[in-house]
């Protein structure tokens, strides 16, 4: 009877607690809506805080967002970002978890824009999330800066974006860069193999890479490609299957724990004694590979990011601020997040609003379109997708570990200009590659 009563008739104490909880929630929501209208520039930061992508990508990105926002609010960054906040308004970051899939992210995005009243959203690692959010951003007229996702389809269709921007590079650039690096450094190889995670990222990466390789090294034969399930963790059979084909180079777009497990197991099984592995996302584990990745492993950082970032005042400040706080150097996802926020600040301050006020979204979007801004990774031109997609160089190099210091560095770096690895506006990347990179301007 007691159980039945407690289920059907709330006790007075519980009722009061329930009313208090609803009242508290209402207060929090009211407070949230009010803050953005109280002069602060509120940015919704969306990145993985849980799940397998959190450790290698999401947490470094969130940490970078905190470091940059704190630095900007103090006016601590070097020129041209040495003014406080954004247009003089204090920045407030609302960081949310990207985990849960595209449907959940669309709900979270609507919540950020409509209830939390953010002035801009910066985020998204998953290509699926980017593809789902982009049309909603246009529908809600919400300024959205995609900082990491690599899908080539984001701006490839007929949609004419106004509010969506991407300050990172797409996956085709990664793989064209990898093919060009191999042509420049290993022109005599004849056999190549691959191992990719079996979902859109891995399949698209392998497709782009093999198409590009057919252009840069037409005599190379693809002898094997393995597509294990994402997050599989155990690659013994795949490593054997690759080994028996005796490739000279193994290409992999693996990331996170899968990449680290593959390198560890492939090294232990002797595959990496005989073949050089190309890791397009390798820079994100630079500090964790230690002596398990052989010297000479070809590493990419999805652009001039992380350890590939150039020496400039902005990057020097960023590396120090990040390292001082988190006791490790920023990897490429961190650099990309910093870049997206700096791009947003540059555009907002170009929008022409009075100092200390938050510019309207349309004005920021107009200023962002086709802009050129300075970043921790050098100069960024929003020069593709009608001014909504960044054009930047991409770098590759080889891994070198020093057992005395316990530190890894990247050497033999080659940087390919943006015009060398990015198709012209209006041309799909696969068509551009198949046509032999017409109009490419390589340094």
């Amino acid at each position, binding site marked *: 009877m007691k159980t039945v009563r407690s289920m059907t008739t709330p006790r007075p104490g519980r009722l009061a607690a329930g009313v208090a909880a609803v009242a508290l929630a209402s207060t929090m929501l009211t407070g949230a809506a009010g803050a953005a209208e109280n002069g602060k520039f509120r940015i919704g930061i969306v990145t993985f805080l849980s799940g397998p992508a959190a450790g*290698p990508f999401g947490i470094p990105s969130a940490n970078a967002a905190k470091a940059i926002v704190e630095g900007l609010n103090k006016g601590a960054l070097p020129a041209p970002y040495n003014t406080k906040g954004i247009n003089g308004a204090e920045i407030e970051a609302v960081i949310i978890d990207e985990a849960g899939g595209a449907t959940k992210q669309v709900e979270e995005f609507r919540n950020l824009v409509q209830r939390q009243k953010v002035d801009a959203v910066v985020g998204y690692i998953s290509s699926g999330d980017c593809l789902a959010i982009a049309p909603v951003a246009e529908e809600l007229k919400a300024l959205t800066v995609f900082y990491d996702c690599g899908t080539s389809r984001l701006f490839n269709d007929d949609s004419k974006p106004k509010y969506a921007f991407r300050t990172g590079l797409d996956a085709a650039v990664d793989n064209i860069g990898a093919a060009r690096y191999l042509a420049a450094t290993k022109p005599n190889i004849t056999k190549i193999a691959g191992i990719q995670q079996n979902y859109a990222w891995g399949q698209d990466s392998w497709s782009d890479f093999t198409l590009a390789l057919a252009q840069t090294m037409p005599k190379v034969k693809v002898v094997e*490609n393995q*597509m294990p399930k994402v997050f599989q963790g155990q690659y013994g059979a795949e490593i054997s299957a690759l080994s028996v084909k005796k490739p000279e180079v193994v290409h992999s777009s693996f990331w996170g*724990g899968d990449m680290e497990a593959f390198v560890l*197991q492939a090294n*232990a*099984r002797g595959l990496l004694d005989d073949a050089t592995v190309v890791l397009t996302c390798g820079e994100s584990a630079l500090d964790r590979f230690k002596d*398990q990745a052989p010297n000479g492993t070809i590493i990419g950082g999805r652009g001039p990011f992380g350890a590939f970032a150039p020496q400039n005042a902005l990057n020097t400040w960023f590396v120090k601020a990040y390292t001082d706080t988190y006791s490790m150097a920023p990897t490429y996802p961190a650099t990309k997040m910093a870049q997206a926020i700096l791009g947003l600040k540059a555009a907002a301050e170009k929008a022409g609003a009075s100092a200390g006020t938050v510019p309207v979204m349309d004005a920021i979007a107009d200023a962002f379109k086709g802009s050129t801004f300075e970043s921790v990774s050098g100069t960024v031109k929003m020069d593709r997708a009608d001014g909504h997609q960044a054009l930047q160089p991409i770098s590759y190099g080889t891994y070198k570990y020093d057992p005395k210091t316990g530190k890894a560095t990247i050497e033999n770096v080659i940087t390919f200009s943006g015009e060398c690895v990015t198709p012209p506006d209006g041309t799909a990347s696969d068509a551009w590659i198949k046509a032999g990179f017409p109009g490419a301007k390589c340094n």
Partner: protein
Amino acid sequence: MLSFLAVLIDGTIYASWLFLVAAGLTVIYGVMRILNMAHGSFYAIGAYAAASAIGWYFADGTGSAGVSFLILIGAALVAGLVVGTLVERGLLRFMYGRDETLMVIITYALLLILEDAMKIVFGVNPYFAYQPYTALGRSTIAGLKVSNYDLVLIGIAVAVGLALWGWLERTNLGKILRAVIHDREVARAMGVNVRRMFTLTFLIGTTLGALAGALTAPSISVVPGIGVEVIVLAFAVVVVGGMGSIEGAAVGALLLGLSRAAAVHFAPQFELFVIYGVMSLVLAIRPQGLFGRTLVRKI
């Protein structure tokens, strides 16, 4: 020829890992009739405990492989027993005798709670504890290079399987447990303390899960979510072999391991679903699994 040999070696190594992962799950189901969805979390807790302990042991750059193996096993025992005791005493003992479906929901909730608890305790950054994996070196078998750690894993899986079989078939305690498996009401009537048997079984199951995670940790990057990934595979092994059967889990693991290795070498496009294809085939022919008993339902 080399590919066939590779299928045999890779399949056996993978099967050993599958068996270690699934053994605890099938023991718990066999005795307690609890389909423990949280088994993957015990695997992950074992992996995190081992990776943390190995990281601590090798922090100054020195350490021996032999000691590191003892640390792996010690970490698994501590993690499995401590967390298993907390879960069994703090939650499951209040639920014994409930419907099997309800137990699935309860252990699923436990899985979600433990996944978040692990993030709080261990964070979300990857743990890399490779020293025991690389310390043993590698062997070359007919031209194929194989990690010695993986070969040791085969030996451990065989030892665990034989120990479980011997315990159930050759000891008095095992006979009592088999009586509980056969009919817990009659066993209780004969004076068996069934609840104590449940506690013992659950701790063995969770420790086996933690041991599987600890032995896997040196060859992977330990990250959030690894427990969720393995639970599906563990279920596949247990279902194919027959739920609650140790020898069934061994044969199921071998069947799935060899099938997957063959797919990887000869038809990689089918690798993604070969395990589930084999599972479907077995269930279509023997719905109770290869070694499962057809149960008479009490009305």
